[in-house]
């Protein structure tokens, strides 16, 4: 009905409009400004005539150190994601299928508890824990800190998709002769794939850009592309170069997501 449609459209606009406005103002506009900045020859704050250049992007191609740093950042993101998966998925499975009643709520609280404390405080408390074991200022320390920060994301997203699996589906599979291994491989895991992918995306993207934990826990061993970006903004005041590095990182992460997406879609097709 035309009248109802028009009213619906108005209502939808009114309810989603503020969110989109907010996203535009806080994310899209600043990102566009930084993208513009990355093509400038001099920092936008310097009172000089505006000129454009591609040399900041060329510098990335010319100097191998920035490619090396980007590779390390992507590697770090991948390692953190895999560790979170290995630790978080069994935990989510236990929460969804094994633990029932009051205990489940208590466990939930413990999973969410790290979110209640400030990330910086958590990272510094890891320095206290790792120092006596001589693990501080090493790469494993960085991974430990990052996994601890991002694990709840994986547990929660996997839990949501695992508990959506109807118990009767599992019963049916068992009655058809599936043993635990096949049951997990062919029924439970494929059905929980959306949660796994959501958790991976939520962890990989921020972990790749992290530079606080690598700096505090890794010391000299915590070199990331984020560290180079920070140097451009605080040491050389070369904002265009920092912006170029940031967008190259954004591009790399987008490419990875685009590469994974069709494969993931195909696997979820059958569900």
């Amino acid at each position, binding site marked *: 009905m035309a009248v109802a449609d028009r009213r619906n459209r108005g*209502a939808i606009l*009114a*309810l989603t409009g*503020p969110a989109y406005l907010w996203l535009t103002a806080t994310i899209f506009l600043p990102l566009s400004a930084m993208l513009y900045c990355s093509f400038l020859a001099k920092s936008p*704050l*310097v*009172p000089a005539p505006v000129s454009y250049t591609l040399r900041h992007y060329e510098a990335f191609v010319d*100097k191998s*150190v*920035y490619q*090396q*740093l980007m590779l*390390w950042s992507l590697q770090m993101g991948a390692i953190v994601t895999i560790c979170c998966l290995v630790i978080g998925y069994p935990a989510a499975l236990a929460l969804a299928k094994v633990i029932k009643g009051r205990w489940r709520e208590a466990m939930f609280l413990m999973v969410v508890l790290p979110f209640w404390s400030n990330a910086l405080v958590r990272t510094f408390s890891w320095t206290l824990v790792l*120092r006596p074991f001589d693990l501080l*200022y090493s*790469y494993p320390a960085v991974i430990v800190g990052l996994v601890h920060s991002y694990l709840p994301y994986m547990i929660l997203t996997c839990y949501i998709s695992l508990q959506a699996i109807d118990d009767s589906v599992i019963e049916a599979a068992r009655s058809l002769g599936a043993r635990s291994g096949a049951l997990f491989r062919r029924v439970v895991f494929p059905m929980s794939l959306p949660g796994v992918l959501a958790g991976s995306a939520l962890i990989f993207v921020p972990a790749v850009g992290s530079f606080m934990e690598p700096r505090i826990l*890794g*010391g*000299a*061993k*915590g*070199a990331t592309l984020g*560290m*180079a970006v920070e*140097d*451009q*903004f*605080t*040491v*050389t*005041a*070369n904002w265009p*170069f920092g912006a170029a590095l940031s967008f190259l990182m954004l591009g790399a992460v987008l490419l990875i997501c685009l590469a994974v997406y069709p494969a993931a879609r195909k696997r979820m097709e059958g569900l």
Partner: protein
Amino acid sequence: MSKTNSRITRRRFVAGAGAIGLGAATGVLAAPRIVRAEGKITVLNWQGYGTDEAWAVEAFKKATGIEVVHDYFNSEPEMITKLRTNPGAYDVVLTNSAWNGVASGEELIQAIDTSQIKHFADLNPSLRDSALLAKDGKVYGVSWVWGMTAIAYNTEKFNPAPDSVEVLWDAKNAKRVSVRDDAVEAVSYGAIATGQDMNHPKDIEKVKAKLLELKPQIATLWSSEDEWNKLFQSGTFDVSVYWSGSAARSKTNYKLPVGYMVPKEGGIGWFDGLAVASNAPNNSGAHEFINYMVDPTFYVEWATKVGAPASANPKANDQLPAEDVGRQIHSDQAAIKRLQFMAPLTDEERQTFSDLWTEVKAEFAK
């Protein structure tokens, strides 16, 4: 029976609430902020660097009635950025001698009326009249303090005291060394250790090779005085590159076993000047504050109570007690002769140093 023809429908309620919310938000954002100029000044400085001492701010307020508000920066480029992005927000700005020219060149600071500074004539001439703090024959920064960036070591671990910059490269100190995560400082020490001019080193590859040799030595990198104190106290490192005033503070204020020495190969010297920002809302208040800062009474209390770099006012230095740590560090004339003073760098030089340091840090992480 419930009334179904209420005039307040859900749709109307949401619309109304949204309109009120939007109106409130725009009202708050659009309201002009009233700037009260008299009776207040805003100071831009490093944190914990003299101007924000609670007793000093209070004494100044009692004497002049002007309230002092602070904003901080963690690096000199950040200071320049804050001046560029907040015109009219600051009155007094601390500018390192290597950066005063950058700020005055971009007209971020204004010429100082030296007649309003009582102790101007007392200041050490080589600092007071330095070309680095002037432009077109006018004074753009009142030299306030000077200091060195040299080697600080744990007196409990080093007996006798080290005297060479090679202590940072000594294999005996593997994983017990720290340097500041700053490209210019790192390259400067690489140049000093290879016998070159730290501001314009001729053989930059030699500097890079020397810095790469630090890889087995580095425990971690530090970036603020507070971080240095925490790492030193927890025994993370025993010897590092550190600022002289901060070393005096760490020893006096925090009672840490800090020893300080300028290596025989040389050290970094620097001096800071207090400047008045362009479009400062309280120009006269800014001058009064600068006047108070170069006053010996302020300096002596700051140095003895907290620890400070050396004052640009020799009269103020002379009033310190003989056993004051800061005075001992800064009156070593032989050490001062070995210093190379920081000079302004071009953008290209700074970028070269930064790229070099990024490559060195990437090697450290491998």
